[in-house]
């Protein structure tokens, strides 16, 4: 079956003053099928959000892109602004943003913003508008009593739900959720991601960008782990979170950092995106690194690593 979104060899780098470059996304490929949820996880600053911006055509002027991101027949990387504005954003790609405080219009109430989206995207007209706005709010568990508030009067959690409600209005085939659960408590995280998952149904796809591994585990079918601009592991969620567990040492370290697991941080910090090493970017922090890691590992059998963890049933590496 044809995927909803097909990303092939996507790279994004930013030209900086002085001629240096920041490589935010490097050679990322994945397909996203209808009815599927792919969770993109990784440390802050690894390039996750830039990938989302690229898919929405929201990269700044100094960005250079390579590769392709096909949504239906349209390449999101080369589409012009008019196409993106009129037929992509909100209509074919719904965005649940990272910081709703910055996403919502500060001078208008939530109701007025919901009604505007319903008018523009769904063609709802008065007098049905009021009820439709309340229904849209309800879908994202936004309490009707707060509809007449301005964004600054909302808690972080309520603002996030308002933004989620806005994103769901267009019924877009691809839903892009960029850290949709930041600042929410666990019950709300569960409700928010469950709602996103429900929205996916059978004919839509969800790209969930998150650092919240519990949220990813809850709804993802597949997991892509991003590190220093590259996808280092791409695998089925049950195998990743359960047995046999992640294969890439970085992904394993990330899971072990959870308070319900070892609660031990990965030593060191990720490399600068301005000065990525020629070989494996994780080698400097990795206890398995050796001379082989000076070469760039390809994504083989779901992990880009020279010394991946093997299935526990197999014999351990000598």
């Amino acid at each position, binding site marked *: 079956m044809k995927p909803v979104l097909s990303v092939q060899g996507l790279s994004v780098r930013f030209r900086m003053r002085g001629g240096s470059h920041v490589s935010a996304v490097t050679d990322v490929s994945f397909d996203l099928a209808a009815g599927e949820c792919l969770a993109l996880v*990784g440390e*802050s*600053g690894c390039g996750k959000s830039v990938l989302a911006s690229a898919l929405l055509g929201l990269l700044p002027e100094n960005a250079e892109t390579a590769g392709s991101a096909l949504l239906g027949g349209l390449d999101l990387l080369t589409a012009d602004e008019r196409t993106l504005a009129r037929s992509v954003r909100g209509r074919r790609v719904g965005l649940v943003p990272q910081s709703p405080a910055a996403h919502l219009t500060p001078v208008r109430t939530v109701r007025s913003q919901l009604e505007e989206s319903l008018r523009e995207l769904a063609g709802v007209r008065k007098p049905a508008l009021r009820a439709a706005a309340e229904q849209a709010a309800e879908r994202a568990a936004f309490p009707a009593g707060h509809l007449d508030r301005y964004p600054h009067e909302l808690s972080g959690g309520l603002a996030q739900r308002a933004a989620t409600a806005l994103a769901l209005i267009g019924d877009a085939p691809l839903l892009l959720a960029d850290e949709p659960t930041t600042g*929410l*408590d666990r019950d*709300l995280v569960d409700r928010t991601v469950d709602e996103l998952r429900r929205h996916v149904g059978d004919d839509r796809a969800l790209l969930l960008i998150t650092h919240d591994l519990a949220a990813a585990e809850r709804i993802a079918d597949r997991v892509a782990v991003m590190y220093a601009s590259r996808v280092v592991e791409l695998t089925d969620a049950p195998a990743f979170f359960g047995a046999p567990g992640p294969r890439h040492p970085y992904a394993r370290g990330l899971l072990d950092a*959870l*308070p319900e697991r070892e*609660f031990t941080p990965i030593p*060191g910090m990720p490399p600068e995106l301005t000065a990525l090493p020629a070989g494996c970017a994780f080698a400097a922090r990795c206890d398995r690194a050796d001379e082989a890691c000076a070469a760039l590992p390809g994504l083989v059998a779901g992990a880009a690593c020279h010394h991946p963890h093997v299935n526990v049933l197999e014999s351990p590496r000598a």
Partner: protein
Amino acid sequence: MLELRSVTAGYDRAAPVMRGVDLTIAAGASVGLLGPSGCGKSTLARVAALLHRPDAGQVVIDGQPARGWRHRAPREQRTAFGVVFQQPRLSADPRLTLTDLIAEPLRAVGRAPEAAAVVPALAARVGLGKDLIGRRPHEVSDGQLQRACLARALVLRPRWLICDEMTAMLDASTTASLVHVVEEYRAEHGAGLLAVGHDRVLLERWCDGTTHWDDLTGGL
């Protein structure tokens, strides 16, 4: 000991966020305060850190009742607290390099000359290397900026740390790393901690004890 005694606080006297809340943290102890989004736990953290004047009630710091709030708090009380907020972007002056950001509390209390000796070591402790601390907030990631904000909270060696959703924006590894820095500091200096958050698993792992917002406020 840090005590909140029947504190009533909020932003509208007619409808306070909390009414008559009592909370006690023994010297050197750590308490995790759990509560859902928007319940008012950040307001409580701000009151405890002398950043928000309560409508009624007292905050007592090591036996001394708070004598002022925000910039009116006497210096020895104000500097007894180190505070880390949820959103590093909103709590960092974008014009300052991370070095200046971390040194700002020293400057504010007239101890700027100490910065050169203290800041690099503290930065290294929170995991920020030499190449990073010369940068401004827009040149670093959220996780790196929060590391700087934690260093800033520690630079005056506070007796009390108030961490308001310190790790809500951060990935698992950065979270574990910052919590370890806090715990290392507390072990060394015997500082007390109020950690506010909604992640039960995290706070139970992190703190000596946790208390739920509803139990503090009687479900109000």
